[in-house]
């Protein structure tokens, strides 16, 4: 069970609490976790990654265990504590704009 922390506006869009949980088969990477989140919550498709390019939206960041995975290759393995559910993968909205 992987824990994923969502930013406020995506929580309201998906009508969920701060964290959601998903199951990931195989290697636990950012790509695999986001695939599972989008399958479970289809309304979030396109809001975290571009529909076509699958690139991270510029004002979102991915953190796990205080480490920034935003610019890592999407198939980078996440830490064991995320795999075990001890720590969440955090999707953070950048503090920007008005």
């Amino acid at each position, binding site marked *: 069970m992987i824990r994923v922390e969502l*930013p*406020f*506006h*995506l929580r*309201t*869009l*998906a*009508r969920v609490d701060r964290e959601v949980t998903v199951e990931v088969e195989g290697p636990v990477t950012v790509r695999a976790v986001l695939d599972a989140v989008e*399958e*479970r*919550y*289809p*309304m*979030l*498709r*396109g*809001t*975290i990654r*571009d*529909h*076509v390019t699958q690139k991270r*939206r510029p*004002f*979102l960041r991915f953190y796990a265990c205080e480490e920034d995975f935003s610019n890592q290759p999407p198939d980078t393995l996440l830490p064991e504590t995320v795999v075990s559910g001890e720590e969440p993968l955090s999707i953070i*909205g*950048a503090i920007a*704009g008005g």
Partner: protein
Amino acid sequence: MSSVRVLVGTKKGAFILTADGKRDKWDVSGPHFAGWEMYHLKGSPADPNRIYASQTSGWFGQVIQRSDDGGKTWNTPGGGPTATPEGMPQGESNKFVYEGEVGKHLWYDGTQHPWEFKRVWHLEPSLTDPDAVYAGVEDAALFKTTDGGHTWKELPALRHTKGHLWQPGAGGMGLHTILLDRSNPKRIFVAISAAGVFRSDDGGETWKPATRGLNITYELPDKTNEVGHCVHRIAMHPSRPNVLFMQKHWDVNRSDDAGESWHEVSGNLPTDFGFPIDVHAHEPNTIYVVPIKSDSEHYPPDGKLRVYRSRTGGDEWEPLAKGLPQSNCYVNVLRDAMAVDSLDACGVYFGTTGGQVYVSADSGDNWKPILRDLPAVLSVEVQTLA
């Protein structure tokens, strides 16, 4: 008794204002989608309880919302968490992808720049089918859903109409106006900043520019002057679909032949710059604009907020100021932020970048604020309910 429902999109959420036919006392619902930019909300003429909304964000991109109960509850069509026998739903209600090769348009430095989807500016529900809606987007293109917003498909021929010569204005290259013709279901007009007006007579399969006669202040990239016009808004009365009115960047224009030709009708306006233009519900020759001081300031002349009305289809204009601020007013009224209802005494509505929503229940003679302190208003639509 008849009533009205006003759909207001703002920079920080949507608001729904309802009143009976007197339009004197208002109930306010909202903010819906708090914190999101609500570019446009519009109800289906075929089913007034069906409302579509464009919800957008610099962080999270584009979302389409739909209500089936007049705005009480909302859902993302095709995006719900309900399981299907095949597994999870494959909702694509937020997916706007250009058809075929993306293509390029003219960029500020004269080079060619690839089309990039940014947001939905305008939603125009079909006149007859609640599940069919057109969406005007930035970078300019026209999309359509026929399944209630579950999926969207581009009508790509529009961008092939000299799209390589379209160029964004300061506000972006958005398709902001979609006019449907009750008497001819195959006819569609669209307007794009800063490309111009285009007409299709076959439901969007083919298009042609409809800009002949518009004034040209500077040389356009298109040497034939068919595209490159900064059209801010066009409007039509449903009973007279061949007559169009236009607020352009620098002048107000009229066409009497379905966009085949245009002539200027700015007349005695204090400034011919502005964004919205609309037509009285029962008087096809009565039109409204909100003159804004051109070109860099974008607020009302002399700090006086005045709607101008022409009862002659242009050229002769009268200021309407009763109830509107006549000093120290420096707001703007954006292109999608004016609407009319169809009650016997036609109601006229508009919203400002200062967060005020005004109503006139007597065709513009007298105005009152419904709300004064909303976020900047991006769009105003009104539904007249039986």
